[in-house]
């Protein structure tokens, strides 16, 4: 790639750069993984081969596409592709490619490809590959999204997305408690960091006035001079440190080793944990070079490097060694970025690449050992080179690179690191400390690499493995081999292999400040060389002298007593247990009523404050009240008051009275010329009544012998009455205020005038719902779906309280439900209801037809998706009432959750169709078709959206209905005979 570019003539190159649709290439790189991730479950289910091809093919295509981009950015140029996102907020969706981005694109897609191949052979056949690869592809897309982001909000979005995918992948084997705990810990730590990052970039955007990365990068001086620099820096660093597992947030990474090894190799060593490093490098030009940057980043990096290396030395689980080693190396990179020298940045980028190659191959080699022997414990391993010679060779190469042995890439970046450490100029004590820690960490690196490779592959062959080990399949060794080869190639011919890449990446960060550096294997007898030798010898000595003692220990000395993980768990326990307990002690709110009261009072207080000072009342002019209308309202008020007085003991009567009030409201709408609202109100009223009736039976029975009222109870009653009256007065005055508040120039005139020419419909309400304010409607149906699913989740396992088990017999149970009672012959019950049941069955299709009618005419006349959806549910209710839940579900496939999902997807798809056609999201099209027989037929694409609304509404209400109806099936556990009889009666 880089080689080809430099070999081609400049004219040819310029031509290629001109002709390539670079913007679309970067778009394709971002979209492809997400698209395939969504498609994988559909295409690849049950076919491992096809699934593998989807994964590796996608990663491969991304790799090739990314390679094509190189000529355009090789000399420090920036490619940008911008889409309108929220122009009103100054937000654009920008894809930005520069040298650093390109390097990460290659890392993410390249290692993704290798991990895909590896995982196919690693994952046990009993686990579905579809889910695994789908998640892995989703992660790949999110990671590519981070590095491609040209907008900081977008960056944070993809950043959090990687945390989510990491959570799902760590918890892939979710039956294991350790995997679940690890996934949760990682999620909490990284997502919290992501939120800090969001706050940080918002501060940055506040300073610079732009969310655009290029604009922020151009405003370095202004940012560093701003008083908000320090808060912004700390917040962004919290994001970077949590993601890159820096002390003291490093504890999630060793825990995350519960994930399948391909995930560890991909996310937790090569790519995701490098996102923090990427962030440090991305904002290095604007944030670095100050005292706080040096102390925080340099200090944390130094500490992490040392702690990680020390802890890694004393682990026995091979993956744990690698995890702590990863922490140590990430600390090294962070420290390089923190020292503030330009050579440090070059070294950081170089080591990022090198670490990704040798650590990923090391993880895969360890995974192969685990796969073959069934254990990863170094104390139970040994001599595997006799049975797995090829894997052993590859592991030796990768381990040597990790230890920094010459001829391998790890050596080169370590040399560069030593040079940077020696070149630091922050006072004698600090410089000496840096150099000493650098050598110590390098020595420990040698020791744990020796332990890892020596412990597993050398020594006498053992015969007590859980499985009989032999060489893993060829394609499992292939990715390890490729990466080991890369280690060698970079190590031997650095300038030739990574020279152009490194230059492009460093150029994009440093620009014209790019320092002179020399990528060569041999620099002569220099100080860094001497440090390398010292570290190497010290590491070997430590290994030879100390390995028995290390093997006998269970924890790392000096730091074994501290545990960041325990600290984290203690904080978590405080937040989730102690704090709520405390809060409950201060506010006695274990009771629902008290909580409700507090909420209502708070709302009242804020509502009262909101209208201070009260707006001047407008004089009501010439109010003419029709006596019939007044009478109607008196009736409605009587019903409402009746319902309130009856609610305590006569719930059924109260419910009917409430329905009466609803009907009065409905007639009021007709009276005030709002037929649309009237129809909706009528249908909603009916379905609400039925749902309430179904719920009514679970309320406890009346207890007739009540003890005399205690003073406390009396006080409660008075209090509740005051609150209730207060709410009533408040709502009434609110309504009064709204009706008397003259709006000078409201939007309603626009809607009234534009509904037909702009929206193609005469029903203004419906046109507003599905066209003008379709985005609002989309939000509303989403909320409705969430509510329905929540109701379902709360009720589907619900068992009624003990006092309502022996529920009132005739009252409360809807009489129409032909469910068998245990104490009588079910057949007789069904027979008695035969005639009404039959009549209801006749009516059901009529209601369904009515629903269709309401739906189709919705755009021009009262109706629409919402009311049609509820009407369909009415059909279902009527069927359930007539024939019972079992009968209906034996004949109709009632799958409301699918309706909800399909409706939401359809609504979104109809909106996206407009985007594809080049218009804003949710644009509707309308016009006329002239058909042969029917003549002029109007069409309107908003109908599709409305159908989505229809499906969501019917699904949501049906879901709630079904879960309530099933309560009655589950209420009593009938004797086996009764079940059989019921089955016969209904069949």
């Amino acid at each position, binding site marked *: 790639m880089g080689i080809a570019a430099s070999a081609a003539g400049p004219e040819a190159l310029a031509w290629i750069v001109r002709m390539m649709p670079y913007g679309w290439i970067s778009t394709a790189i971002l979209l492809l993984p997400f698209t395939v991730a969504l498609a994988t479950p559909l295409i690849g289910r049950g076919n491992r081969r096809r699934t593998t091809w989807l994964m590796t093919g996608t990663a491969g295509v991304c790799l090739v596409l990314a390679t094509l981009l190189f000529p355009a950015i090789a000399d420090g140029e920036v490619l940008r592709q911008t889409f309108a996102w929220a122009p009103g907020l100054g937000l654009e969706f920008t894809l930005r490619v520069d040298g650093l981005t390109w390097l990460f694109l290659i890392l993410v897609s390249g290692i993704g490809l290798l991990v895909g191949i590896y995982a196919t052979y690693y994952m046990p056949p009993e686990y579905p590959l579809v889910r695994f690869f789908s998640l892995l592809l989703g992660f790949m897309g999110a990671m590519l999204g981070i590095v491609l982001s040209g907008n900081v909000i977008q960056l944070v979005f993809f950043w959090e997305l990687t945390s989510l995918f990491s959570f799902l992948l760590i918890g892939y084997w979710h039956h294991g408690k350790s995997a679940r705990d690890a996934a949760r810990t990682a999620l909490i730590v990284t997502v919290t960091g992501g939120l800090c990052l969001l706050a940080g970039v918002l501060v940055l955007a506040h300073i610079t006035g732009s969310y655009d990365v290029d604009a922020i990068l151009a405003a370095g001086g202004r940012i560093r001079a701003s008083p908000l620099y320090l808060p912004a820096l700390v917040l962004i660093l919290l994001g970077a440190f949590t993601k890159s597992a820096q002390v003291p947030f490093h504890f999630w990474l060793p825990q995350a080793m519960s994930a399948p090894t391909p995930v560890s190799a991909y996310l937790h060593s090569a790519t995701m944990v490098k996102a923090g490093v990427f962030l440090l490098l991305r904002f290095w030009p604007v944030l670095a070079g100050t005292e706080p940057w040096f102390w925080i980043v340099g200090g944390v990096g130094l500490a992490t490097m040392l702690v990680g290396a020390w802890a890694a030395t004393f682990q026995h689980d091979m993956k744990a060694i690698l995890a702590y080693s990863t922490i140590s190396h990430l600390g090294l990179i962070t420290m390089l970025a923190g020292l503030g020298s330009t050579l440090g940045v070059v070294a950081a980028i170089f080591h990022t690449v090198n670490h990704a190659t040798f650590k990923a191959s090391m993880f895969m080699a360890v995974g192969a050992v685990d796969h073959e022997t069934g254990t990863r414990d170094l104390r139970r391993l040994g001599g595997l080179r006799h049975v797995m010679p090829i894997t052993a060779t590859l592991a030796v190469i990768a381990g040597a690179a990790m230890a920094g042995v010459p001829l391998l890439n790890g050596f080169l970046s370590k040399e560069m690191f030593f040079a940077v450490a020696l070149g630091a100029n922050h006072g004698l004590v600090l410089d000496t400390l840096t150099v000493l820690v650098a050598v110590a960490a390098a020595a420990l690196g040698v020791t744990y690499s020796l332990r890892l490779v020596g412990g597993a592959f050398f020594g006498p062959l053992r015969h007590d493995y859980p499985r009989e080990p032999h060489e893993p399949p060829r394609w499992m060794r292939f990715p390890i081999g490729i990466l080991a080869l890369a280690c060698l190639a970079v190590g031997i011919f650095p300038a030739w292999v990574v020279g152009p890449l490194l230059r492009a990446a460093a150029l994009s960060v440093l620009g014209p400040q790019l320092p002179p550096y020399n990528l060569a294997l041999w620099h002569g007898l220099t100080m860094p060389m001497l440090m390398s030798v010292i570290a190497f010898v010290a590491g070997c000595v430590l290994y030879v002298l100390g390995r028995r003692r290390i093997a006998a220990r269970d924890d790392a000395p000096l730091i074994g007593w501290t545990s960041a993980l325990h600290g984290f768990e203690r904080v978590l326990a405080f937040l989730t247990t102690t704090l709520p307990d405390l809060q409950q002690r201060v506010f006695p709110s274990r009771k629902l009523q008290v909580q409700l009261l507090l909420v209502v009072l708070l709302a009242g207080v804020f509502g009262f404050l909101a209208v201070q000072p009260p707006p001047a009342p407008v004089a009501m002019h010439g109010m003419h009240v029709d006596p019939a209308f007044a009478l109607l309202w008196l009736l409605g008020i009587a019903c409402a008051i009746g319902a309130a007085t009856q609610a305590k003991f006569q719930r059924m009567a109260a419910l009917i009275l409430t329905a009466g009030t609803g009907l009065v409201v409905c007639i009021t709408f007709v009276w005030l010329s709002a037929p649309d609202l009237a129809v909706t109100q009528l249908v909603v009223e009916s379905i609400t009544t039925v749902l309430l009736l179904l719920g009514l039976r679970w309320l406890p029975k009346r207890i007739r012998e009540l003890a005399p009222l205690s003073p406390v109870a009396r006080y409660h009653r008075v209090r509740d009455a005051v609150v209730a009256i207060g709410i009533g007065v408040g709502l009434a005055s609110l309504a009064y205020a709204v009706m008397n508040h003259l709006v000078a120039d409201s939007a309603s005139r626009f809607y009234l005038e534009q509904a037909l020419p702009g929206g193609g419909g005469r029903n203004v309400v419906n046109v507003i719902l599905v066209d003008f304010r379709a985005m609002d409607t989309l939000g509303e149906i989403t909320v409705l779906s969430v509510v329905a699913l929540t109701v379902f989740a709360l009720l589907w396992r619900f068992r009624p309280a003990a006092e309502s088990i022996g529920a009132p*017999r*005739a*009252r409360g149970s809807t*009489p*129409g439900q032909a469910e068998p009672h245990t104490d009588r*012959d079910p*057949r*007789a019950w069904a*027979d*008695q*209801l*035969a*005639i*009404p049941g039959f*009549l*209801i069955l*006749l*009516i059901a299709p*009529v209601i369904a037809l009515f629903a269709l009618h309401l739906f189709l005419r919705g755009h021009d006349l009262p109706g629409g998706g919402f009311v049609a959806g509820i009407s369909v549910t009415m059909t279902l209710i009527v069927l359930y009432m007539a024939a019972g839940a079992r009968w209906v579900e034996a004949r109709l496939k009632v799958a409301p959750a699918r309706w909800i999902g399909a409706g939401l997807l359809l609504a979104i798809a109809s909106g996206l169709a407009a985007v594809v056609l080049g218009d804003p999201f949710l644009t509707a099209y309308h016009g006329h078709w002239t058909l042969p027989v029917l003549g002029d037929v109007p069409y309107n694409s908003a109908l599709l959206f409305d159908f989505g609304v229809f499906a969501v509404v019917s699904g949501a209400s049906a879901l709630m209905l079904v879960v309530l109806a099933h309560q009655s099936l589950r209420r009593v556990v009938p004797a086996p005979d009764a079940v059989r009889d019921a089955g016969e009666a209904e069949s």
Partner: protein
Amino acid sequence: MNVLATVPGWVALTIGALVLAGALLVCIGSVGLLRLDSFYRRVHAPTLGTTLGMYLVLVGTIVFFWAGEGRPALHVILIGVCVTVTTPISLMLLARAALERDRREGAAGIPAANPPETGADGGE
């Protein structure tokens, strides 16, 4: 109300008479519901309104629209059909529920349930 002003007087009178007669029947039914003594008696009273009363109002409506707007408002008949079909359903369900409860509570004067073999008794 201006529609009534435009039609001939006898038409307006007819419409008024039909609607008022219907309303009167509904009113009688309501009074019956209030005054009759047992549930089984009371359940019959409102049917006066839902059958003949409703038909009279419907005919009045049809004439009203026919005379006023010059088109036969035949879709109003649909209302009649729907009410006619649904009223007996709720009536039967109510009566069944009452019967069921009375039998359980052992109220006097309630006929025993028929054995299942004879099927439903449509007597109520």
